[in-house]
């Protein structure tokens, strides 16, 4: 909690400094900065709500360098357990908890997460730092990437790497037996973007993640061998994926986008993701987009809907449905408005973009969610 307060103070100070700096240098910097603000609301069939307010600020330095800052303040509400204390329903709800269970398990649980990210870019290289903080979880990450053009800028190849380290300190809980722990993630990627024709561009990427440390929910218990035992996942996970994205421009001022991703890890999960979207200029400055995504995965080798003994499978037990077979669908629609089309002469509006995005997600575990995003971007260019 103290960390969250400290982060809030740092973020506030950063924001004030940014505002002051931009105000002082307004005459020089007004034509080069970008400001963006986004509100995101997430609600799901389990009545979990997440409300996020994100702010982005980017400005260039002399010598082709640029700095971008991102801050996200997020409020997560996990509902109270809706069953009478002591009933079988309440026990089931508690054993699959994604929240600490204390004496007030029958009240809503609210937590706050702050996320700060800074990226410094210069020509074709960038370094970044990421920090995410909540009461029981602190994540940090440093990364670097670079890219290079080939064949008269028809082919771009980018490579990147990052290292993340997380500190996990589960809160006091009626039945949590997991102490403080940590997790590290080493990541590397290579992405190639190729222009195939004046209206077609292809992107292909390859990613590898090596994760070590605590990777299960410290608050969750699993029903096994007639009793409840703490969830336990392997400490090491190798994750890799490759993806293809194809964007095609059409003659009626629209574009079609296709994507495919193949994922595999050493826990036994293999997944396929197919996505497509249509983006259409409805009128000057107004773009409407429609999206569909299909996803399917196999289950982890140690996942079972029921465990006969407390030792599970090879010593591992999971109550996490993400480890099971599943399929999901997502439908989305969005509109983006460039205010320049409405007020070309206005000093502020002509630099402003507004957008609204809605998504409906549902999967084979009877889980569904609605995601609503609305945002504003101001480009001082």
């Amino acid at each position: 909690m103290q960390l969250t307060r400290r982060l809030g103070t740092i973020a506030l100070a950063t924001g004030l400094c940014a505002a002051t700096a931009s105000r002082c240098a307004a005459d020089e910097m007004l034509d080069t900065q970008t400001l963006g603000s986004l509100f995101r609301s997430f609600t799901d069939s389990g009545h979990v709500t997440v409300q996020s307010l994100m702010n982005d600020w980017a400005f260039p330095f002399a010598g082709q360098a640029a700095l971008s800052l991102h801050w996200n303040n997020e409020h997560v509400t996990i509902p109270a357990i809706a069953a009478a204390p002591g009933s079988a329903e309440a026990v089931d709800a508690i054993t699959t908890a994604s929240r600490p269970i204390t004496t007030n398990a029958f009240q809503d649980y609210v937590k706050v997460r702050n996320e700060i990210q800074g990226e410094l870019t210069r020509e074709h290289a960038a370094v970044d730092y990421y920090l995410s903080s909540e009461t029981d979880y602190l994540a940090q990450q440093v990364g670097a990437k670079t890219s290079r053009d080939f064949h008269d800028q028809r082919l771009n190849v980018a490579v990147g790497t990052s290292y993340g380290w997380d500190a996990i300190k589960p809160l006091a809980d009626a039945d949590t037996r997991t102490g403080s722990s940590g997790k590290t993630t080493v990541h590397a990627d290579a992405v190639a973007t190729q222009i195939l024709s004046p209206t077609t561009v292809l992107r292909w990427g390859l990613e590898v993640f090596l994760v070590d440390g605590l990777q299960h929910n410290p608050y969750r218990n699993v029903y096994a061998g007639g009793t409840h035992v703490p969830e336990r996942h392997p400490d090491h996970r190798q994750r890799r994926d490759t993806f293809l994205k194809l964007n095609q421009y059409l003659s009626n001022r629209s574009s079609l986008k296709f994507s495919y991703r193949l994922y595999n890890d050493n826990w036994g999960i293999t997944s396929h993701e197919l996505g497509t979207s249509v983006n259409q200029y409805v009128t000057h400055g107004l773009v409407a987009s429609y999206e569909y995504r299909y996803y399917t995965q196999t289950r982890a080798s140690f996942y079972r809907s029921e465990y006969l003994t407390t030792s599970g499978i090879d010593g591992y037990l999971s109550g996490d449905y993400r480890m099971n077979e599943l399929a999901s669908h997502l439908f989305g629609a969005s509109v983006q408005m460039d205010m320049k089309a409405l007020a070309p002469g206005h000093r502020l509006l002509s630099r402003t973009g507004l957008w609204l995005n809605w998504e409906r997600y549902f999967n084979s575990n009877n889980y569904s969610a609605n995601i609503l995003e609305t945002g504003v971007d101001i480009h001082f260019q």
Partner: protein
Amino acid sequence: MTPRDAARCGRFALALAALAALLTLGTGCAAQAYRREHLADPIMSFKAQAKLDARKMKSFEAREGSTGGTGGAGGGCACN
């Protein structure tokens, strides 16, 4: 590394080589610089989509067993 893991790595490397070949062959018919106005349109941009993709990846990671697809590590916790 088990034989099964080795086979998976082999398939991955094969996919890498095949796609590299595809990209190399594709350069022959690529657009000249002066014919790229459609490719620069915001509705064709990968970059304009990047932030949205990163937010989506974070949401999907919390509800599905896989990750990736954006060309960068997500970071943060998987709690929500």
